[in-house]
């Protein structure tokens, strides 16, 4: 059973796994979280605004993204993006977009839909009275949003945002389908080269577990500390 497992394949490739693979995974997670959160907040604000048409467009976007499997979106954007770039730039040929850039854009666009739902709930969690009080003391919409509503919404939603980031961290493994060298991609390349799938995938699972579990424990503690006393 376990007797013919040989974990030296793991120790021999540690630097490749972490310096190339995990670096890509963490970078993608970090940038897509920030990008997704910014875009998601914008979408949430548009959805809650009284602008014409735009709220419906934003809602349609969110519903579309939430209806599609991430794997499909990863394929579609990887192949589509250069043509979009060409159209935006008015170039005569498709624009080359690298694997990292393409993944960042994919995950930002995809996660923005999920972050926007979180931020929408966050903004709605601010009592209406505060908004009215803000207007009463003479704040305009922008001041009211940036000084009263958004800081509190962000704070209320911080644990949920971090939980979503952990989901995102796990979801980045799906770039495997494009043969990109993220952590799982690196692990599978070594595993297939050396014919050591069991050892490598067990190791990968353990690494993902330790990181996600530690992070979610941290979030639970954060949740207890940041809760606003009502």
């Amino acid at each position, binding site marked *: 059973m376990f007797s013919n497992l040989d974990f030296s394949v793991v120790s021999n490739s540690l630097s490749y796994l972490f310096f190339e693979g995990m670096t890509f995974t963490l970078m993608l997670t970090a940038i897509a979280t920030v990008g997704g959160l910014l875009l998601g907040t914008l979408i949430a604000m548009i959805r809650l605004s009284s602008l014409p048409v735009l709220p419906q467009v934003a809602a349609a976007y969110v519903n579309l993204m939430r209806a599609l499997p991430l794997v499909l979106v990863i394929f579609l954007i990887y192949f589509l993006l250069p043509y979009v770039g060409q159209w935006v730039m008015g170039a005569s*040929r498709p624009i080359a977009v690298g694997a990292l850039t393409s993944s960042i854009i994919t995950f930002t666009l995809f996660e923005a839909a999920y972050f926007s739902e979180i931020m929408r709930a966050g903004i709605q969690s601010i009592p209406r009275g505060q908004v009215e009080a803000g207007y009463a003391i003479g704040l305009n919409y922008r001041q009211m949003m940036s000084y009263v509503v958004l800081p509190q919404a962000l704070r209320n939603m911080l644990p949920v945002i971090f939980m979503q980031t952990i989901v995102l961290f796990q979801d980045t493994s799906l770039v495997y389908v494009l*043969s990109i060298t993220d952590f799982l991609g690196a692990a599978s390349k070594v595993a297939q080269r050396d*014919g050591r799938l069991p050892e490598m995938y067990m190791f990968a699972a353990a690494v993902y577990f330790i990181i996600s579990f530690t992070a979610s424990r941290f979030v639970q503690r954060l949740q207890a500390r940041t809760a606003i006393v009502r």
Partner: protein
Amino acid sequence: MKSMSRMAKAVLFVSFVATPTMALAAGTLDKIKETGKITIGHREASIPFSFLDQNQKPVGFANDICLTIAEAVKEHLKLDKLEVVLTPVTSATRIPLIANGTVDLECGSTTNNLERQKQAAFTNTHYLTANRFVAKKDSGLTTFEDLAGKTVASTSGTTNIVQLNNYNAEGKRGITIIPVKDHAEGFLMVETGRAAAFVMDDILLSGLVAGSRSPSDYALSEDALSKPEPYGIMLRRDDPEFKAVVDAATAKLYTSPDMQTLYAKWFLSPIPPRGLTLNVPLGEALAKAFANPSDSADPDSY
């Protein structure tokens, strides 16, 4: 909306920063000149054409050919420096990535056929190989007829899986076909007993068998689903200037004595990652193809 402008600008800024260097130029040559970069698509396990060595760096016969092409492009454009960017591709992603400009040259084991010429262009042929399968010797599978009712793997996005599909559908043979992402995964399906056979180009199968833990356990099929078909380096179609440079560079290399050295380096000498030798001597048809470089997709012309 005015009130949102800061946020909107921030988003715009982020998307701008995240956008890569834009090339507004028309052809691939102009793009390379402007960016100072040429992007080469490589494979993970197309042994010995394009695969990863012990340090996970792409190497191989086709890889070396592409580096020669890049050198020729650099000379042609009179550049002081040309950065070669290596991007991994799979059988399934290579054609869309060539078409959408992500990759300029695809250096691996891509069969040149008329169907694909509608999507991409090919330069001169660098190998000829037929569609066979590998199976464990003790399974007793030796011909394609034996595969009826079996579970068989093949790499998705290859001509091999299309031919296998057609073969299966024509004769109602009841073969269960598992599409795999790359050749190493396909071979693992056979090694671990998930699939009875792996259908692929014979040279790639020989490479995988040679690199396996017990090469003597495996045998290639006696018959083939196709004639030996040509492999070519793939580039974007409708770009005659770039193709002319690439064709000239490969023709020069293939007809020179360097090609014999290069062939010997990958097919007759120990290769990474484990220092195995494939020992596949240069065949007559391929020698002729090197002497008279051709980008024909017709197997009968070789």
